[in-house]
């Protein structure tokens, strides 16, 4: 995991990305670039699938804003 997303507390959520549904709208990467990146083809890749608590709100908004419904947050299993 890259240093810039190192969690300050234990992550409670992980991002599930369906790259097959991604159309490269890029809304997620605009809203939460710490988690969502676009690769060379313009499709979503995750900088980290675990969401640090301080990024939870932005990560959730990024996922909910996906026009394709290709992103969702799920609780990390205990």
């Amino acid at each position, binding site marked *: 995991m890259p240093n810039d997303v190192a969690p300050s507390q234990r992550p409670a959520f992980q991002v599930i990305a369906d790259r097959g549904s991604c*159309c*490269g*709208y*890029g*809304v997620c990467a*605009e*809203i939460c670039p710490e988690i969502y990146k*676009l690769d*060379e*083809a*313009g499709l979503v890749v995750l900088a980290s699938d675990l969401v640090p608590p301080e990024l939870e709100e932005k990560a959730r*908004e990024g996922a909910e*804003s996906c*026009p*394709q*419904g290709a992103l969702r947050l799920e609780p990390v299993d205990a």
Partner: protein
Amino acid sequence: MRAQDLADGMKAPSGVNSAFANVSASFSVGMDDPYPLYRQLRRSSPVMEGDLMAQFGIPSVHGGTEGRPAFTLFRYADAMTVLRDGATYSSELIGKGLGALVGDFALTAMGGDEHRRMRGLLQPCFAPDLLRKWKEELFAPVIRDQLVAPLVERGGCDLIEDLGIAFPIRVVYEVLGVMTDSRSAAQYSDWGLQILAAMRRNQTPGTWQGALDASQKLYDAIRLAVEERRAAGATGHDLISSLVNAEFEGRRLDDHEVTNFVRMLMPAATETTTRTFGSLMVLLLQRPELLERIRNDRRLIGKAIDEVVRFEPVASWKNRLVTRDVEIGGVKIPEGAFLSVAVGSANRDENVFPDSETFNIDRPAKLSFGFGFGPHMCLGLFLAKAEIETVVNALFDLCPNIRFDPTKPEAVIRGMHLRGPDSVHVIWD
């Protein structure tokens, strides 16, 4: 390319300009500033019984709406709920409106699995990496060298009549890669606008017949181009070649489908881009300090375009058919009801956008609905943004100190739907 073709490319023939003005007149319904009304209704009746679009006579691309219970939505959250869920909130009535004019392949009217499969076929044809090739190889040099550069020595122009109507047409012509000259490209666009004009309410039978005729002519011309392209191997980066070669889950498109799809793009791909560009330029020219800041930092053009799409969405209204009983904002809405979604209101919802009635390119990234949202979100939005960015860059580079022409009428963004300025007169040093 011959010199005469270059000259043609600088300015669209007057037929397109008058068709553009005709669509403006039909869709704007004479209201310059609907935002105070939206603000009031967003507070007093965010889920309003009745169809505000119909009350104002705003054309819709949906048909078969008569006699249905109707509701109008003004809030961001409700717009998102509706646009996200294509199963509960269907677009099928487009098939009885615009769809009846553009054949049996109206993507915007499709739903469910059929739409998913078609979108899967088409999406790669508009993917960001392909778009970069289009921009670099096909349209950026044309916009700069053939459309903007020839204007420079005039010292001023009307950004709509002399540039804004022409450039999206030229981009479509370059991206399709088959039209033999810019005059025929303008003819295609004129036919596209005639189809759109037939969406007006209380139209005469002649308008509909004229649109059907235009649609058939458009079909015949594109079909010929598609057949030629397929016969030649369809090896280029152009859109028709991509469509001919597209495959998804074993399904491919035949000539009829490619033709119908390209025809459907004609009313969608040009005049909306013209208006977005026009509104962007008006908002920047009204704010010389902001314009100067963006001129010095071109990375901000993208943010400025996103904010225009929020603040002045061209397509200000979306419609959906409700397919099961639902409740929105405490209001019961029955199956079969027709919804009008006020995108122009949702995009200025103060619960979501602080200081929502201010044009502010520095606001935090946030989804707005100017390109729609959900399964039917605009397929061409990257293309539209890239075109506009290219034109603005060229104007900044080639037209120093660009500003409003004080001797000409003030540029006004107007209309309740398909909003934008009719003219933007500017001068430069």
